[in-house]
């Protein structure tokens, strides 16, 4: 028993510094993202105020907020969680932790370069791919290094069993370099001609925002849910089925219904979106059979609650995706806020909240220090849920209203904006709560990082001064 404990402690400790850099920087960008999102939404309250400074206009701030959330928080947090899950499932400490530490710093530098690029007007102009070359090259190499290290740990694992989490996370390690290099080469590096650019950008955006986050988020959930519920994943074969259907149907969609491209592209896209209902049902069944009625931990506003909440958000978000491919509804909701609401539900409601739950579970174990403000964890979860509801519900409702107005030729365009504005203003309140939630998370994580640095500094100081210390001299 003690041998096992030591080895678990060693495994946790081996991940400590890389995870602190990935999560610490990630949470910093998370706060940056929600500040930017609040600034962007202020445009809907007082558009007049933002005319003198290009850095404050919606077209700069909104993409920056989106990218700070996805590239700044979601991806590094996902990679950190993946590194730890590999090490734990394989019972193998992470070797050469220096490399992922350097890579994590490179990643955060890439995000910084990319965001400054957007504000400086160097955006590529494609959604989710806005970062200019310098930033995207850094991100690509940082990801390669991190995924290489995760794969080395995976292939050298001592526990040879292969778990569903493994499939999802390994696929995600390969997924990003593939889609990111393809999209950057064909759109930014050597641009293809005409609307093919847009087709590639849609394909990429869907593969990153939907497929990648689903792979990593579900990979983490399939690890944590059975652990917390005290019941094995129900079942292995459902998970296998979900894995293949999700990546096959999920990866071949993203072209909107009315796009000015040959009709087979939107048709194929819609078909695959509709077929996604198959893995979504299977995922819901897995969640239900694994969690409901299990005699595991109580949720109590902690990690378990968050991951369950994230799981439900995933099902809702994916159902919205399916709905937005249905024949009439797709025409109604395209170009409206409905799509933006789905993206927020996927990125924040599902992915970020699943990551919060994972981080709250992982960090105290790898650092060996408890959180300084444990009561804030529950408060943070409430703020996040409230904020998410306040953001997504008005946008879904508003999206449908806006769509109905846009469909009606007797309503002037200004009518659709007018109907939408009050709801957009309500959604600012949601963003404000999300900002508070993110600040609460940051508070706990930064306090932990400071406490850890302090303990390291103390240990170093003690080690340096120890041999020379004389009795009576305080070290």
């Amino acid at each position, binding site marked *: 028993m003690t041998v096992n404990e030591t080895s678990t402690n060693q495994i946790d400790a081996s991940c400590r510094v890389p995870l602190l850099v990935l999560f610490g920087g990630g949470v910093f960008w998370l706060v940056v993202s929600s500040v930017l999102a609040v600034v962007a939404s202020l*445009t*809907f309250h007082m*558009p*007049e105020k*933002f*005319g*003198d*400074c*290009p850095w404050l*206009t*919606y*077209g*700069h701030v*909104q*993409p920056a907020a989106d990218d700070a959330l996805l590239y700044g928080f979601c991806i590094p947090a996902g990679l950190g969680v993946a590194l730890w899950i590999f090490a734990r499932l394989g019972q193998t400490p992470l070797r050469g932790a220096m490399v992922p530490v350097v890579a994590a710093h490179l990643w955060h530098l890439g995000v910084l370069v990319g965001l400054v690029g*957007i504000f400086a*007007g*160097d*955006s*590529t*102009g*494609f*959604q989710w791919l806005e970062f200019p070359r310098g930033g995207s090259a850094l991100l690509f190499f940082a990801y390669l290094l991190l995924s290489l290290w995760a794969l080395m740990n995976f292939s050298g694992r001592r526990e040879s069993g292969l778990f569903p989490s493994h499939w999802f996370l390994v696929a995600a390690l390969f997924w990003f370099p593939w889609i990111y290099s393809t999209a950057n080469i064909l*759109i930014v590096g050597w*641009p*293809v*001609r*005409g*609307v*093919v*650019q*847009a*087709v590639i950008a849609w394909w990429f955006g869907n593969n990153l925002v939907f497929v990648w986050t689903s792979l990593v988020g579900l990979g983490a959930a399939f690890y944590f849910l059975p652990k917390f519920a005290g019941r094995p994943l129900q079942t292995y074969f459902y998970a296998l089925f979900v894995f293949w259907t999700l990546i096959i149907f999920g990866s071949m969609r993203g072209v*909107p219904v*009315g*796009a*000015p*491209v*040959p009709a087979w592209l939107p048709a194929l896209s819609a078909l695959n979106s509709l077929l996604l209902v198959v893995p979504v049902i299977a995922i819901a069944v897995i969640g239900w059979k694994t969690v409901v009625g299990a005699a595991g931990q109580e949720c109590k506003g902690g990690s378990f609650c968050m991951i369950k909440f994230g799981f439900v958000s995933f099902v809702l978000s994916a159902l919205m995706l399916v709905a937005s491919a249905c024949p009439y509804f797709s*025409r109604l909701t*395209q*170009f*409206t*806020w409905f*799509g*933006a609401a789905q993206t927020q539900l996927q990125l924040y409601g599902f992915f970020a909240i699943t990551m919060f739950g994972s981080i709250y579970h992982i960090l105290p174990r790898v650092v060996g220090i408890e959180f300084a403000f444990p009561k804030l964890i529950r408060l943070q979860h409430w703020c996040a849920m409230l904020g998410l509801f306040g953001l997504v519900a008005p946008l879904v409702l508003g999206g449908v209203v*806006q769509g109905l107005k*846009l*469909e*009606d*030729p007797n309503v*002037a*365009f*200004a009518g*659709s*904006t*007018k109907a*939408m*504005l009050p709801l957009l203003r309500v959604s600012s309140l949601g963003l404000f709560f999300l900002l508070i939630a993110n600040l609460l998370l940051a508070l706990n994580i930064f306090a932990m990082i400071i406490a850890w640095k302090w303990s390291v500094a103390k240990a170093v100081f003690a080690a340096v001064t120890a041999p020379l210390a004389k009795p009576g001299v305080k070290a």
Partner: protein
Amino acid sequence: MQLGGAKQVAVLNSSDVYPLNRPGEANQGLQIYRANGCAACHTEQVQQEGVACDVVLTAAGKNPMVVSNLISTLKLKGLTEQEAEAVSGKIAAAGGKVETHIFATGADIARGWGLRHSVAEDFLYDNPVQLGSLRIGPDLAGVGARLPDANWQLLHLYAPRSLVKDSAMPPFRYLFETQKIGGAPSTDALNLSKEFAPPAGYEVVPKPEATELVAYLLSLHADMPLYDAPFTPPTPKK
């Protein structure tokens, strides 16, 4: 990929080809459009539900009475393609000469955003292609045809609410310069209404970025009838 190797196509009933590259200034304007993230709020994708046909009599032929009697019994406007063909056949049999005019239908078309839906050809020479995905502001695929006045566009960029009440668009004042009037006022100075005008003795002139952006906006008029998006161009008003 065929789409990636797309080339210019013929304009229907004409010897012209489409599209032509945008003028240099407009291409620079596209970069301003990209840099300022205009596509975050504006789409360039006009949607179309279908087409409707009007049958128009061009010559009554030898038996004008028969033809006019026949026409009075027939529905001539808002027909489907098959109906239009049938009606044309009947009138032709009676000796009249007809033309079939095709119109795109749908809310976007009715709003005047374009004469047909956007097609891949419209963006052949654009880099980057800025289709957009969210309509916080109106679609811009045909803005150059709808609002062809460069001064209106400049004024609208500088102070949207001076022209469109309740507009949610932020003003782009940083694309303009407020300068002291030295000697004669600049010919480029904006003719702003009182509420938005600079202090006396000053004038607002567009920076090159603003003129380029407007050149791009005015170059947006995807209004050529094509094989994959046919319509009958309206006769020019005299």
